[in-house]
């Protein structure tokens, strides 16, 4: 109708003489056309780029994990040399002030990055210079040991205060772009028009006698635990006579006067030969362990949980034969001990529970990490206050920043302008972003650096790592803890394994059902049945996975747990009953069976399955009692029963296939020749008997195999079948089947359907049965399409999140046990990312996990897509 009007108008126009039709397109049309082209092209390219940009973004976020650490600044300067040797050097949180602590109690603060001196402080040591120094890792608590056998506690703390810019006093000296000083306090300009004020405060308390009068204290370890209101102070000392003591300080507050009185109790550590040259003594915060490092290269571990009965638990060699111990210090958490040798050895030891340990507490010290060697004797050490980083220095002046878990050397510095020899000290700053090194002459080297993700290397993410307290190197994921001392375990392997485990078990369940169902739908039932069944299966695809997960975890998991034996039985009964009914169906004369081959036959299949489930439910408990000692869970845990029945079940399918193969190979042809001459029903009965015979034969074979292997010591438990957990891979596989079956089914059915019907017709016309046609004509043609379907289903299973989050129990285990849980990449991201700090290590590792997941599905999907396109092309050509 539209057209006729147009043509009318044209006619009218063409009839008018003298008027030439304007054939040019209107300007507006042209502009709109051009505009549309531009918009669509730009829009299209934009969306494609945006979608592809996802990968680029994930890479961009994850990449800093592998980026190296960078040095952002350094400085060398000389301060007025202290009059006596140095005990320690301290730095504040913002790397503004460095304080040199010398033996006579003089503290020399300097501006850390320029070396500008600030007003010195003096601690009152009563005239005697200190002979030993100890400090807690955090909090600025220090302790000094003296030649007269006394110990003084004190504090060297950096005070910080943030002020509005206008409240800063006038007349400050400018140090650099950021900092100003009045000689004592340093003011730093910080964002938001504010100033940060930093200064040093120090105090020292009255001496407390530890060693007998006149025995100098040479080594001191100092710990403050408990709460700020009720601190528990403990310290360990070594005196010049080689006697080591553990001392506890008890502080009592008099409620009436408010006065605090403290008393010291000391115990001499046993089994320490006099004159042992002790390198260092270490103490845990709870004062339940003391380690002594001896110069000859071994350590002594004391159990001090019972203060009145301290025992030497273990003596452990630390170093290669010809090396002397030079550094013996603890990392944060006081579990890992860094050991340095006179020839540059560096290693980390911690205690771990190992079978066959000869010690009284079952723990032994193990060498968890062997680190890169220094070229010369290791002389200096400083541990981080917040991570497992530490710095070591050798006598050649090389300062290395290292990380314990990843065993990597992050940065290497070389001191400048320093004299050789002992007395050089290093300190890692509280925020892990600077190192200060000094020597006796007052030369200070200062380096600033950035170490964002020192713990992530390819090895820690994908390799085995020996974590603190573990008996051996392992793949472990354990990311979150509120404690700095916790060693982060970020191996992605357990998560990748969990993803693969979930995928494999769901596909074992889904592929047979989906593919066989698709073949049946496409080849063996009429269009009217298919038009009902196919949409029903497709509907399952749009079920939200959160619903599947909920049903799996809260409804299915408890049922499966109670009825596990019955469910296993049902899975065996259903195929058996189906085959039985198939053989019985054959017995029916075709005159009867042929008209029933549509809906009624399918209905019978349904009935058989329901019957199988019902039978499983009814005889399940009996089956359990017969084969698994009445309690499958206890059996799976290995508490009761023997392995033979399960082995029998496992071997049965293989035996049946073997028996069937042999029967076909040696008797098949003759058997068929015989049947050929028989009447239909008689032949079918013989066929049924043959099948029964094969079942029995396979049963016998399988039983013999099971008994033999049990006698040989093989147990079905311990691999795929092991300890039962309520939320397990079986439940996940089943629930994920719901998500995967419709996808595989639909795509496979489409592939089977798109095999040109003339092939089917030709095959049937040549006299092939539908079964032969399906097996030898349709399946080979559609095989690549079915493969693609399976791959796409696999892609979905790999990425499925909610089902795994809810039904898998989320334990990062590394075993194939079908009755234990798993933690998949996707679930892990969903659970941990909301709590991860932006740009933190965990955040980036989770982005890496997402990238791994993306890559896994991308590979699988691309294979599927390429295969599918090829199949389509081939199907079109046929």
């Amino acid at each position, binding site marked *: 109708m539209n057209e006729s009007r147009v043509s009318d108008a044209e006619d009218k126009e063409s009839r008018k003489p003298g008027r030439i039709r304007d054939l040019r*397109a209107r300007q507006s049309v042209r502009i709109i*056309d051009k505009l*549309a*082209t531009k918009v669509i*092209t730009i*829009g299209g390219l934009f*969306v*494609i780029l945006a*979608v592809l940009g996802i990968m680029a973004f*994930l890479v961009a976020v994850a990449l800093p994990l592998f980026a190296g650490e960078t040095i952002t600044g350094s400085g060398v300067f000389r301060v007025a040399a202290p009059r006596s040797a140095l005990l320690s050097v301290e730095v504040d949180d913002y790397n503004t002030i460095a304080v040199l602590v010398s033996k006579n109690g003089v503290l020399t603060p300097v501006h850390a990055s320029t070396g500008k001196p600030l007003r010195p402080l003096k601690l009152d040591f009563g005239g005697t210079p200190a002979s030993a120094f100890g400090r807690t890792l955090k909090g600025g608590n220090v302790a000094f040991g003296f030649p007269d056998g006394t110990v003084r506690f004190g504090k060297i703390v950096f005070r910080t205060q943030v002020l509005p810019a206008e409240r800063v006093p006038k007349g400050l000296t400018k140090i650099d772009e950021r900092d100003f000083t009045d000689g004592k306090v340093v003011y730093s300009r910080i964002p938001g028009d504010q100033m940060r004020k930093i200064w040093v405060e120090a105090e020292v308390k009255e001496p407390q006698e530890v060693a007998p009068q006149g025995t100098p204290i040479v080594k001191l370890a100092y710990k403050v635990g408990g709460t700020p209101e009720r601190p528990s102070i403990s310290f360990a000392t070594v005196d010049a006579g080689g006697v080591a003591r553990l001392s506890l300080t008890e502080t009592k507050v008099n409620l009436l006067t408010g006065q605090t009185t403290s008393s010291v109790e000391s115990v001499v550590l046993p089994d320490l030969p006099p004159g042992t040259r002790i390198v260092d003594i270490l103490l845990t915060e709870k004062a339940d362990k003391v380690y002594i490092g001896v110069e000859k290269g071994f350590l002594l571990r004391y159990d001090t949980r019972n203060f009145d009965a301290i025992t030497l638990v273990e003596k452990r060699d630390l170093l290669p034969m010809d090396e002397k111990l030079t550094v013996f210090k603890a990392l944060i958490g006081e579990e890992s001990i860094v050991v340095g040798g006179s020839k540059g050895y560096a290693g980390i030891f911690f205690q771990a529970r190992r079978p066959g340990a000869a010690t009284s507490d079952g723990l032994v010290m193990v060498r968890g990490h062997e680190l890169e060697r220094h070229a010369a004797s290791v002389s200096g050490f400083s541990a981080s206050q917040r991570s497992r980083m530490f710095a070591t220095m050798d006598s050649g002046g090389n300062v290395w920043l290292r990380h314990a878990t990843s065993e990597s050397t992050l940065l290497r510095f070389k001191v400048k302008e320093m004299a050789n020899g002992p007395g050089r000290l290093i300190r890692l700053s509280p925020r892990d972003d600077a190192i200060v090194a000094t020597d006796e002459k007052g030369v200070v080297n200062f380096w600033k650096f950035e170490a964002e993700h020192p713990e992530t290397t390819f090895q820690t993410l994908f390799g085995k790592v020996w974590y603190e307290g573990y008996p051996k190197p392992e793949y472990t994921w354990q990311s979150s803890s509120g404690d700095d001392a916790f060693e982060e375990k970020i191996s992605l392997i357990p998560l990748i394994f969990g993803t693969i485990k979930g995928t494999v078990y769901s596909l074992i369940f889904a592929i047979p*059902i989906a593919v066989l*169902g698709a073949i049946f*739908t496409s*080849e063996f039932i009429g269009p009217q049945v298919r038009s009902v*069944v196919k949409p029903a299966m497709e*509907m*399952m695809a*749009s*079920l*939200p996975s*959160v619903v599947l997960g*909920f049903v799996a*975890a*809260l409804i299915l998991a408890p049922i499966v747990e109670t009825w596990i034996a019955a469910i296993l039985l049902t899975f065996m009964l*259903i*195929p058996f009953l*189906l085959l039985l009914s198939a053989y019985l*169906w*054959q017995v029916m004369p*075709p*005159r009867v069976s042929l008209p029933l*081959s549509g809906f009624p*036959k*399918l209905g019978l299949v349904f009935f058989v*399955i329901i019957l199988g489930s019902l039978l499983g439910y009814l005889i399940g408990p*009996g089956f359990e009692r017969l084969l698994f000692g009445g309690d499958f869970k206890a059996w799976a845990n290995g508490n009761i029963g023997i392995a033979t029945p399960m082995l029998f079940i496992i071997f049965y399918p293989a035996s049946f296939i073997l028996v069937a193969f042999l029967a076909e190979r040696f008797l098949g*042809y003759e058997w*068929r020749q015989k049947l*050929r001459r*028989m009447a*239909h029903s008689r032949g079918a009965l013989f*066929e049924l008997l043959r099948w029964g015979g094969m079942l029995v034969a396979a049963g016998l074979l399988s039983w013999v195999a099971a008994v033999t292997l049990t006698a040989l010591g093989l147990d079905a438990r311990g691999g795929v079948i092991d300890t039962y957990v309520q939320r397990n891979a079986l439940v996940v596989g089943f629930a994920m089947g*719901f998500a995967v*079956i419709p996808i595989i*089914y639909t795509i496979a059915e489409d592939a089977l359907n798109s095999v040109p019907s003339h092939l089917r017709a030709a095959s*049937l016309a040549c006299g092939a049965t*539908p079964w032969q046609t399906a097996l030898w004509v349709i399946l080979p043609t559609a095989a690549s399409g079915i493969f693609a379907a399976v791959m*796409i289903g696999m*892609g979905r299973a790999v*990425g*499925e999140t909610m089902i795994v989050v*809810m039904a898998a129990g989320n334990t990062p285990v590394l075993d194939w046990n079908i009755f234990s849980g798993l933690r998949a990449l*996707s679930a892990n991201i969903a659970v941990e*990312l*909301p709590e991860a700090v932006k740009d933190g290590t965990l955040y980036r590792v*989770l*982005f890496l996990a*997402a990238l791994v997941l*993306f890559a896994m599905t991308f590979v699988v999907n691309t294979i599927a*897509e390429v295969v599918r396109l090829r199949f389509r092309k081939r199907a079109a050509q046929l």
Partner: protein
Amino acid sequence: MKAKEPKKRKEKKKAEMPVPEADLDNYMEPGPEAAQTLEAEKSPPGRTGLRASLDFKARGEPFVWIMGGALALGVLMIIGFLALVLWNGIVTFYPGPVEVVTLKNGQRIAGEPFRSESFRPSDEQLKGVDPESRRAIREADGFASRTLYRIGNFDIYNEDFKWAVAHQVARTETPPGIFFVERREWGPFIGFIKTLTLDGRRIPGEKVSLDALYAAHDEAVDRREAVREIEVDEIGAINYYIEEDRLALRRTELDYGKNSAEYRTEKEKFERQTKERRAGFAVLKKRISAINQEDEKYKITLTEIGGREKRLRLSEIVRLYPANNLSLFGKIGVYFSRWGEFLTDDPREANTEGGVLPAIFGTVMMTLLMVVFVAPFGVVTALYLREYAKQGTLVSIVRICVNNLAGVPSIVYGVFGLGFFAYTIGIRIDQLFYPEKLPNPTFGTGGLLWASLTLALLTVPVVIVATEEALAAVPRSMREGSLACGASKWQTIRNIVLPQAMPGIMTGLILAMARGAGEVAPLMLVGVVKLAPELPFDSFFPFLHPERSFMHLGFHVYDVGFQSRNSEAGKPMVFVTTLLLITIIAFMNAFAIMVRNRLRRKFVEGQF
């Protein structure tokens, strides 16, 4: 070996030269297509002498049955699953009787039977059991049955549910006077009415008439609603404006500094306005306390089965009914009233009770917003790929990529959405436009907008693929006809191609919506919360607040099922929510099919 088989058979056949025979009895079963031909073949009588060989292997009956079994199992799984959800979802709100169970040890439990199951008592549980029951259990292969009762009264018992094991039950009765009382707090109360105080008058329980009780309760509910309205709407508005003023003040501070004249005037204004607004509070509070005073006169005292009493205001009760003497109509009334509450009310008690209106709202808003993003971009991309781009290797690679992206796990999109939209773009937006709210993020955290964009990204491949297929299906002749008539490319696309492809595009869009509505994993990262304080849509300018976090039905299922105090108590809620979610998605899918069919018909008619 199988490949060899036919050859071998052929040779032997040749040797024997079997006469081809066809006996109907031995006819191999053909497929359904062949069934008709078979009927036709039956009639010629001359062919009965022919006989086909009887070969069961060729028929493959057992294999066919196994395949049929696979299909049937698949279908049964769906049916079973849907039946489970439907049944549980539909039955949940139907009021059951309240049973009083007296155990053999004298303990009494009053509660609604929740579910029964057979279980395997452990040895410890079997210790105190009398020998008779023990024998019965042994005969049942160690299984015993038990019933879970919803006993309510959480504030008294500290548990919501109690198992009654069948062999321990002495007798079960359904006393007529027992009430099921749904409270706003502490979950349901199951017990008897001891006294009812109406307007200060005390009426003993046995004299309470139901009609009077219901009337008084309705009034109390009205009062509660009135208080709520004042609290949420009026006080909420005041708070909202005070906050707006504060932000304006902070903005001036950031723009001009604290010492500027602008800041001082603004501050003065702020203080004056806030004072005025605060004055409004007092009036409202007075109104609330007046209502509350009235409310105090209407009270009810309940006693649980053990005799312990609980006194509460009538307005604290959501619904109450005498569970055991409720007529069928009464039950249906309670049933629909519960559905009404579910669909139109806010959640209570950590989401395990009350309604899901905010979640429905959030789901719908997010899905609609997602369609707004996904429709133009998806269609434009498909147009570009199909109509504008040169068809070559590059485009087919892009096509594989797009197809591929449809299979990328949704959680990956969630990670991207969080990292890119919220943490990269959102934080930038906050710095530029909302500096006064910092450090509280506005767009710099998950929210409705980011969630819809993430889901749009997730579903755009679906739309692209569907649109491309629809575009490809438009016959070339139509395009060429249009171009030959002098239409420009865009005119052709707009007037010929797009209308033709519309059914396909619509289907793609609605399928994308259905997928988007059911997706939960990415939302957990980009803005879904357990309980949103404010809807993303309200009466304050600009009405739609795309930066707010929101509630979602799918997440509600996860949250109530897994994060709540007692997953058993949440289960009914989860089932009903599940039912609702599945219904919404099923409706969307059905709608997609309907639209497709309708448009197809329309365009079929329009074709020439």
